[in-house]
C-alpha cells in the first residue's frame, strides 16, 4: 500500500482529512470567540471595579488579576474541567442522580479561557480608560449628561478606541490558548490533528498543517484588527 501524499492527507479525497480539519478549525474559532466574549465581560467588570469600586471591589479585582496572571492557563482549564464535574456531580446527587457527571468540555474550556483572558482584558480596559482625556468627561458633565448616557456616548467609545490594540493582543493570546482546550476532549483543531496523527501514523504532517492553520487564523484576524483600528481611529490626527 502506498502512503498517501501530504496533499492527499489534507485534501478532501478518500484519504483526505481536509473537511475534518476545517471543522476543527471552526471549533477552535468558536472556542476562542466564546472565551473572548466571556473575557470581555470579566475584563469590563474587573476594570469597573478597579476604577470606580470601593476598597472591597478593588481588592477582589486586584486579587483576580494577580492570581489569574500568575498561574498557568492549563491549571485553570483543569480546575474548570475536573472541578466543574465535581460540582455538577455533587448537585446531581442532591437531585437523586448517581455516579459521575462530566462537565461539558466546551463550556469548561471557554470559561477557563474567558477567566484567564479576562484578567488581561481588565488591565487593557483600565489602561484605555486612563487614556480618556479628563476634559471630555468634564465636557459631558457640563452638557448635563446623566452617568449612563455619559458612559454610552463618551466613555465607552473612547475607551474602546484606546483599548483596541491591547484587545487585539488578548485575542491572539486567546486563540493560541484555545489549543489547550484539546485536553478536555473537545474536537477542535489540535485534537482533530491528534486523531488524524494517531490513525495515519503521520504526526508531523498533521501537526504541521495544524500549525499553518493557526498561523493563517491569527494572521487573518490580525489584519482584520488592524483594519478596524484604522477605522476607529480615523478621527484622530496623527503626528
Amino acid at each position, binding site marked *: 500500500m502506498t502512503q498517501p501524499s501530504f496533499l492527499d492527507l489534507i485534501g478532501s479525497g478518500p484519504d483526505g482529512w481536509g473537511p475534518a480539519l476545517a471543522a476543527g478549525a471552526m471549533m477552535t474559532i468558536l472556542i476562542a470567540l466564546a472565551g473572548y466574549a466571556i473575557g470581555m465581560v470579566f475584563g469590563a467588570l474587573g476594570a469597573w471595579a478597579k476604577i470606580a469600586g470601593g476598597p472591597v471591589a478593588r481588592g477582589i479585582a486586584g486579587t483576580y488579576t*494577580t*492570581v489569574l496572571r*500568575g*498561574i*498557568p*492557563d*492549563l*491549571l*485553570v482549564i*483543569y*480546575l474548570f*474541567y*475536573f*472541578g466543574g*464535574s*465535581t460540582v455538577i456531580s455533587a448537585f446531581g446527587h442532591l437531585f437523586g442522580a448517581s455516579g459521575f457527571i462530566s462537565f461539558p468540555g466546551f463550556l469548561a474550556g471557554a470559561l477557563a479561557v474567558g477567566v484567564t483572558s479576562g484578567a488581561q482584558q481588565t488591565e487593557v480596559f483600565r489602561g484605555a480608560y486612563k487614556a480618556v482625556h479628563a476634559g471630555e468627561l468634564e465636557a459631558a458633565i457640563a452638557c448635563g449628561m446623566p452617568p449612563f448616557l455619559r458612559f454610552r456616548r463618551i466613555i465607552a467609545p473612547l475607551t474602546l478606541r484606546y483599548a483596541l490594540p491591547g484587545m487585539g493582543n488578548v485575542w*491572539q493570546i486567546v*486563540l*493560541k*490558548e*484555545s*489549543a*489547550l482546550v*484539546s*485536553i478536555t476532549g473537545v474536537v477542535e483543531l*489540535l485534537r482533530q*490533528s*491528534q486523531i488524524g*496523527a494517531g490513525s495515519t*501514523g*503521520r*504526526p*508531523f*504532517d498533521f*501537526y*504541521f498543517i*495544524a*500549525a499553518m492553520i*493557526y*498561523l493563517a487564523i*491569527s*494572521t487573518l484576524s490580525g489584519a482584520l484588527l488592524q483594519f478596524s483600528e484604522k477605522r476607529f481611529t480615523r478621527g484622530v490626527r496623527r503626528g
Partner: protein
Amino acid sequence: MDFVFFYETFITLISAIPTTLQLAATSVALGTVLALGLALCRLSGIAPLDWFARAYIFVFRGTPLLVQIFLIYYGLSQFRGVRRSMFWFILRDPYWCAIIALMLCTAAYSAEIIRGGLLSVPHGQVEAGRACGMSRFLVFRRIVMPLAIRQSLPAYSNEIISMVKATSLASIITIMEVTGVAAKLISETYRAIEVFIVAGAIYLAINFLLTRIVVLIEYRLSPHLRQAPSLQPVAAGEMK
C-alpha cells in the same frame, strides 16, 4: 476544610518544583542566547538574515506552544532519518523535547524584546564609544549591551513569568512537573479545587519571587534614576 489533605498535596507538589524550575531556567537561558542571535539578525541589515529572523518570529509567535511541542515530540519521530540520527537520544526524551520547544518559542518573543532594547540605546552613546577608539565589538560589549539589558529588563521579566507558566504544558507530554503532578492528584482524588489552590499558590509564589528578583536587579542596574545620597551639610568654617 480538610487541612490534612492540603498539607499532603503541598508536600507532594513541592517535590515537583525543581523540575518546573529546571525547565524554565534551562529554556530561558538557551532561549536568550538564540534570541540575541535573532535580534542581531533583525538589526544586521543583511536582507536574508533579516528575513529569516522575521519569518522565525512570525511562525513561532503565531502558533500555539502546544502545537510546537507536539510537532517536536511526536512529529519528528515520523521521519526514519531522525530516528536513526545521533540526535535521537535527545529527541525521544520528552524532557529535552519540552526544553527545545520552550526554548524555540521564548526565543521568538525575547528576540523582539532584545531588539527593542538594542534600538533604545541612544546613538550618541555609540558615537562616543567609537570616538574613544573602541572597536565595534567593544562598543557592543561595553556600551550597547549593558544599556540594552537595563532597558529590556521589565519586558523580560514578563517573558520569564510566562515561561514559568508555559512549563506547565510539558505535563501533557508526560513530564511530572507541578502541573503534571497536580493533574495526577486530581484524577486520583477528584478534588480539583483543593489541588488547584495548592498548585496555584506554588506558581504564584515562584512568580512573585521572580518578579522581586528582577526588580532588585533593575534597581541595582539603574543607579542613575535614584536620588543621589544626600551629603552631610558642612559649615564653611569646618572645611580644611
